[in-house]
């Protein structure tokens, strides 16, 4: 396993060189975080469909348990149980609108991962950086458990567990555990754990920071130990169900799936789950006694348990919904953790927006009114006073204000419009509005995917390293 160890050392060194100005050493965080013998245990796999590009190049990399779809190159990298989902990449001939520029895309966009170590990380969406339209790169980067790199070209950075970078080009940054950043472009920043930051210069700026003592109950990551906390326990407790799914060659859906919906064969479906028309259930999603209304979706690493989603609900990557009832068009952002209890359910009124990385964890019934924006940590009805606002009220504000630990500056209407447009785009892309003729999306295009597996050298100096593999139509 000499080559694999050298590869790991090389990546750590390269990340550290990039983060030297922040005096951040990744070595103590990642040493022994994933045992080397784990890296040789799992096969990697890629999807083939008539609707997606098929263009892969894997060079001098370990890809244990990772999944690839679309167009991707990996070089000198370790990808452990990561999802590299290239089904929304820009295509040659597309016109990319940026401010007043209409920029033609000169060739199919591809994801390029070099000198990076991604652990259980999701890479998805297309890059929004007008400077690099055809290349969505991830270089010299280390990301840890359940991080999301979403449309974000990334260089020289570290992402803590459950961290998300969304539509943001990032250079030499540390994104703390459970932090969410959507800020266009950032460099040389060390973002504290539990920071939720959404900024569009000249339009709006939203910032919330979790109280560290309360966040650590849910997720905590320190050098020398794996990530700990309720979020990790929650996922670990359901790990076995996924093992069965990944070990079985063919698997029949255990619930009825309409012809216009998609249930990924690598999702876990437990009894009493209902799938309506145009529903998308992505791989590594977990549904148990979940009622999925028309056009609802459950993206990668989502858990929906004992809950009812009325329809056109977006449950973004990594979100968890337990003992809850969601009205029509409710959006639940990345990695949110919404937990009601059997005797005190969580109810979210229609068209509400639950901000990415929101934690709602209640021990008494909670009703969130329709059309509200909710963020941060909510454990009781009183918390809504400082952690929510009616969307209608927000659209009317052009004044900067602080509410609890949240700061907002800019045009409220633009903030709400940006979110609503994004939700609309996600629903469209997922095929929620498919009418049998038009508006096809992932729910229709991802129904029949063939999965091929690839494996590394089983022993010797290159044990764990995959041979150079080029896959094309």
């Amino acid at each position, binding site marked *: 396993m000499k080559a694999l160890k050298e590869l790991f050392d090389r990546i750590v060194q390269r990340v550290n060189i990039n983060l030297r100005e922040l005096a951040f050493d990744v070595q103590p965080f990642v040493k022994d975080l994933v045992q080397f013998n784990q890296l040789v245990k799992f096969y990697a796999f890629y999807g083939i469909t008539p609707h997606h590009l098929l263009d892969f190049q894997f060079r001098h990399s370990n890809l244990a348990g990772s999944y690839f779809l679309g167009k991707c190159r990996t070089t000198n990298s370790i990808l452990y149980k990561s999802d590299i989902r290239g089904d929304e990449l820009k295509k040659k001939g597309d016109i990319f609108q940026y401010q007043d520029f209409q920029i033609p895309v000169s060739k199919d966009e591809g994801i390029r991962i070099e000198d990076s170590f991604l652990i259980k990380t999701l890479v998805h969406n297309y890059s929004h950086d007008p400077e690099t339209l055809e290349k969505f790169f991830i270089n010299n980067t280390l990301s840890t458990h359940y991080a999301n790199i979403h449309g974000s070209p990334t260089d020289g950075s570290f992402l803590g567990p459950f961290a998300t970078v969304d539509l943001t080009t990032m250079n030499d940054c540390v994104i703390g555990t459970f932090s969410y950043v959507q800020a266009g472009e950032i460099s040389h920043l060390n973002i504290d754990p539990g920071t939720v*930051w959404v900024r569009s210069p000249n339009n709006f*700026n939203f*910032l919330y*920071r979790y109280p560290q003592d309360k966040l650590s109950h849910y997720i905590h990551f320190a050098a020398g130990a794996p990530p700990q906390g309720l979020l990790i326990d929650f996922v670990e407790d359901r790990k076995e169900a996924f093992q069965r799914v990944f070990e079985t060659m063919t698997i029949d859906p255990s619930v009825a799936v309409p012809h216009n919906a998609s249930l990924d064969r690598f999702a876990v479906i437990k009894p009493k789950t209902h799938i309506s028309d145009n529903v998308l259930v992505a791989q590594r999603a977990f549904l148990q006694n979940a009622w999925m209304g028309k056009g609802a979706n459950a993206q990668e690493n989502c858990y929906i348990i004992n809950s009812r989603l009325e329809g056109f609900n977006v449950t973004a990557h990594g979100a968890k919904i337990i003992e809850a009832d969601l009205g029509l068009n409710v959006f639940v952002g990345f990695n949110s953790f919404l937990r009601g209890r059997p005797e005190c359910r969580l109810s979210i009124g229609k068209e509400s927006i639950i901000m990415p990385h929101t934690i709602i964890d209640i021990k008494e019934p909670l009703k969130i009114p329709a059309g509200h924006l909710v963020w941060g940590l909510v454990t009781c009805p009183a918390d809504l006073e400082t952690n929510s606002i009616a969307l209608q009220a927000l659209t009317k504000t052009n004044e*900067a204000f602080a509410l609890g*630990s949240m700061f907002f*500056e800019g045009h409220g209407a633009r903030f709400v419009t940006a979110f609503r447009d994004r939700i609309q785009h996600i629903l469209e892309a997922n095929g929620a509005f498919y009418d049998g003729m038009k508006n096809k999306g992932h729910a229709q295009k991802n129904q029949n995917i063939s999965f091929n597996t690839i494996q590394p050298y089983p022993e010797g100096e290159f044990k764990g390293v995959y041979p150079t593999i080029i896959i094309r139509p």
Partner: protein
Amino acid sequence: MEKYLVRDLMVPLSEYATVHVGATLFDAVLALEKAQEEFDHTRYKHRGILIMDKNNRVIGKLSHLDTLRALEPKPDEVHGIKELGQFGFSAKFVRNLRKQQRRQGEPLKDLCKKAVMLRVEDFMHTTAEDEFIDHAATLDMAIHQLVQDKLLSLMVTRDDNTIGILRLADVFAAVYHAMKECTL
């Protein structure tokens, strides 16, 4: 100018306001008042209090600003306003939040009561290595050190003991007089 040495312009420690570690802010203010009264009234007034350890070595300085800072809400009371700038919030917003917080905070009278309980070492500026100068150094060297490190004073040493303080005001006065002599 060259004829001036640091020791010619310094204020001896015995004429400066000093307190020991453990003293309260109120003790420091009293020491300053006493030193002002006893000091040469034709010279610039003192603008700080030196903090000494138990071996009578200067370990820090408490300026007017440090004293006022002690009256402000503590950093952990400001709910992260300090870092808002790095997240792209406007200076105007941050300023307004501070004002709002100040209005909602404790009135100054109560803060003053609290301040007499506060210890000087918690608010002093700790003297760094580059803030010391030998008593026999020339004024040129002292000016260079003050300007280079943007300092308001230098601690004057002799045989590793601090014997006085060279204030920017006194240096400026010396330069000012030298300039006048040139003109004449």
